[in-house]
């Protein structure tokens, strides 16, 4: 009996919550209570898993009473449990935000009743993907979260969302099929799909076969993680979805791809095989992504491009395959999930307060709503990597690891990382200058909602101007809470979590380091799944 035996609950609880939420589909208040409390319970459970992984190392449980290589294993190690805790914290904040948006109304973008059950299924899929120690179960986890994300992406079924949704569905299905075909090939070559068992058996394969299987998995996960040049689908599909949906997608979905990539690279295919290739991909992802971000005039699209760009940092640390590099990647993933999600939540608030996220139509938000300005400023500087924020600490670790490696490609990558950081700052400063700093009158085409509101209040009172629009988003409402407390509160909480990553950087980096060490060593993972001593044969030469 170990702590991992409660790990399956992290998947079961959200699914149970989804079932209950579906049952209460006509009682929005009850539905909200059920989903929020289920997610809180899941978070407590995952915090316990993290604690036990931190203190007593990797633990595994095999489901259904089958002996290890045959049954589905679930593995709790430092990396997976940290990802679980961070992702559920973010999901909870976004859920509260969405509930607030639903209560405040006045938004045709507001979540409908199907949102809550689907959202819980998404969380269950993410947890399953993080916990599983079985390659096919990882595929199932991906499909659970993707199917939920198809529904969330096309919520409401408006024209732009359907168009974006079709691109998204087709690309996701193709990447899943590539993953499934790789699983079939791997099973044909080794006769197992248990990841710990595979770690032992893949090394015995012919190097050519091994490399082919490796590359197929990298391409499949590369599409999901939005690595250049497989990132084209992301900025097209994310910005059209409702604000909370985009926020949770940006935080979690690509990171699940990154997580799968890290697992494959460290556990299944360790050592220096395609590291140079990964480094070049990381460099291109960072540079091309951030150049795309600078060209955008819509804040949500700009953020989607920075999301792609910063995936490059995570691949950077992974490609170095040193302990410091991997530890920085773990830390950076945790940082990026939190910060990118808070930025998308703030973009949703900007959309409510200013009526649009188009930078040509915004202005003067710093004066209209100083709180909103602070909420944007902190995570924006965090993302750009300004000291003392966690973005700086993560990037510092990556750059140090790059310099430690000392090859020419690594130095180019370090330079690319610094330039990307600067350009991120530029992109954030553009939003700051245009949406927050200048006066509304300076905006090229100020949005009616922006100029119709009084500077001090967050309530919209001008009935004739805005409420009389036949097709407008606030039609029929004379008084409108533009910044409801629940939405601002949950965003604030997430921004504070981002700041806490800086405050508790010491212990957190220690945890990341421990995670990196155990991943590079491989034996703790294999031993935990297959029993003590099993991993000794497959030791990874550092």
């Amino acid at each position, binding site marked *: 009996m170990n702590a991992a035996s409660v790990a399956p609950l992290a998947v079961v609880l959200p699914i149970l919550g989804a079932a209950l939420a579906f049952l209460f589909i006509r009682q929005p208040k009850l539905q909200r209570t059920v989903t929020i409390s289920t997610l809180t319970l899941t978070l407590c459970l995952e915090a316990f898993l993290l604690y036990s992984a931190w203190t007593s190392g990797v633990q595994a449980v095999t489901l259904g009473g089958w002996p290890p290589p045959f049954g589905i294993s679930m593995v709790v190690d430092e990396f997976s449990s940290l990802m679980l805790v961070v992702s559920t914290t973010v999901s909870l904040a976004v859920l509260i935000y969405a509930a607030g948006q639903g209560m405040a109304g006045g938004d045709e973008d507001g979540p409908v009743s199907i949102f809550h059950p689907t959202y819980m299924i998404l969380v269950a899929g993410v947890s399953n993907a993080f916990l599983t120690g079985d390659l096919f179960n990882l595929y199932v986890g991906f499909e659970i979260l993707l199917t939920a994300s*198809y529904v969330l992406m096309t919520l409401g*079924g408006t024209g732009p969302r359907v168009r974006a949704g079709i691109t998204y569905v087709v690309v996701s299905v193709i990447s899943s099929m590539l993953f499934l*075909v790789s699983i079939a090939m791997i099973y044909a070559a080794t006769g197992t799909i248990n990841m710990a068992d595979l770690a032992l058996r893949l090394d015995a394969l012919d190097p050519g076969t091994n490399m082919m299987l490796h590359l197929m998995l990298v391409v499949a996960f590369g599409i999901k993680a939005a690595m250049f040049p497989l990132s084209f689908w992301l900025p097209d599909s994310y910005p059209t979805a409702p604000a909370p949906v985009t926020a949770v997608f940006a935080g979690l979905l690509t990171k699940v791809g990154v997580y799968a990539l890290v697992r494959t690279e460290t556990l299944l295919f360790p050592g220096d095989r395609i590291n140079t290739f990964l480094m070049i991909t990381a460099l291109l992802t960072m540079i091309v992504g951030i150049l795309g971000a600078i060209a*955008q005039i819509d804040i949500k699209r700009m953020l989607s491009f920075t999301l792609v760009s910063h995936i490059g940092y995570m691949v950077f640390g992974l490609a170095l395959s040193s302990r410091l590099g991997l530890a920085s990647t773990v830390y950076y993933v945790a940082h990026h999930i939190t910060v990118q999600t808070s930025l998308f939540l703030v973009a949703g608030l900007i959309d409510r307060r200013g009526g649009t996220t188009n930078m040509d139509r915004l202005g003067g938000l710093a004066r209209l709503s100083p709180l909103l300005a602070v909420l944007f400023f902190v995570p924006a500087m965090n993302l750009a990597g300004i000291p003392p924020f966690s973005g700086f600490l993560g990037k510092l670790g990556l750059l140090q690891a790059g310099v430690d490696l000392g090859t020419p490609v690594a130095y180019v990558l370090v330079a690319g990382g610094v330039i990307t950081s600067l350009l991120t700052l530029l992109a954030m400063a553009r939003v700051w200058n245009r949406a927050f700093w200048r006066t509304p009158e300076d905006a090229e085409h100020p949005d009616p909602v922006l100029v119709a509101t009084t500077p001090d209040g967050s309530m919209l009172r001008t009935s004739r101007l805005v409420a009389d629009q036949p097709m407008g988003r606030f039609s029929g409402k004379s008084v409108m809470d533009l910044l409801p407390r629940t939405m601002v509160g949950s965003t604030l909480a997430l921004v504070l979590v981002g700041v806490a990553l800086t405050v508790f950087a010491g212990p957190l980096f220690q945890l990341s380091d421990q995670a990196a060490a155990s991943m590079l060593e491989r034996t703790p993972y294999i031993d935990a799944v297959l029993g003590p001593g099993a991993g000794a044969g497959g030791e990874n030469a550092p």
Partner: protein
Amino acid sequence: MTVNLTLLVVMGVLFAVGVYLILERSLTRVMLGLILITNGANVLILSTGGAAGLAPLFGKDIPPDAYNDPLPQALILTSIVISFAVTAFLLGIIYRSWILGRQDEVQDDIEDRRVANQPSFDAEDDAEMPAETTEFIKAEAEESPGTPTARAKGEE
């Protein structure tokens, strides 16, 4: 491991036709292509189980080699269910696209085009509200007739 050549050829044809269909612009054909590719993947998984054997029901006198490998079939069952759900969703969304736009084609991303044609603001594309109800913009336009786009056009 023995491999069934017929299964492999069938898989190859399914993948080839599927890829061809996905490259079409018509959404229904894209969906048919995805169905074929998922079926191709299922056939591939089936062929990884090796030659066909006995049903995996335990019998005392049967040597272990004589059984069929049940795992690939369990995997196929799962993946069939998943692809069924995705196909149903795709059908729904294609129907929705037909309702909305009366066309069965992949549509271009308008925002992409707009970003490509910087300077970015297009008064016509961006006008969310009907002109007669937005008095504010009209009033402002009268005050300063030279909006940036107008100015830019004037300079040209």
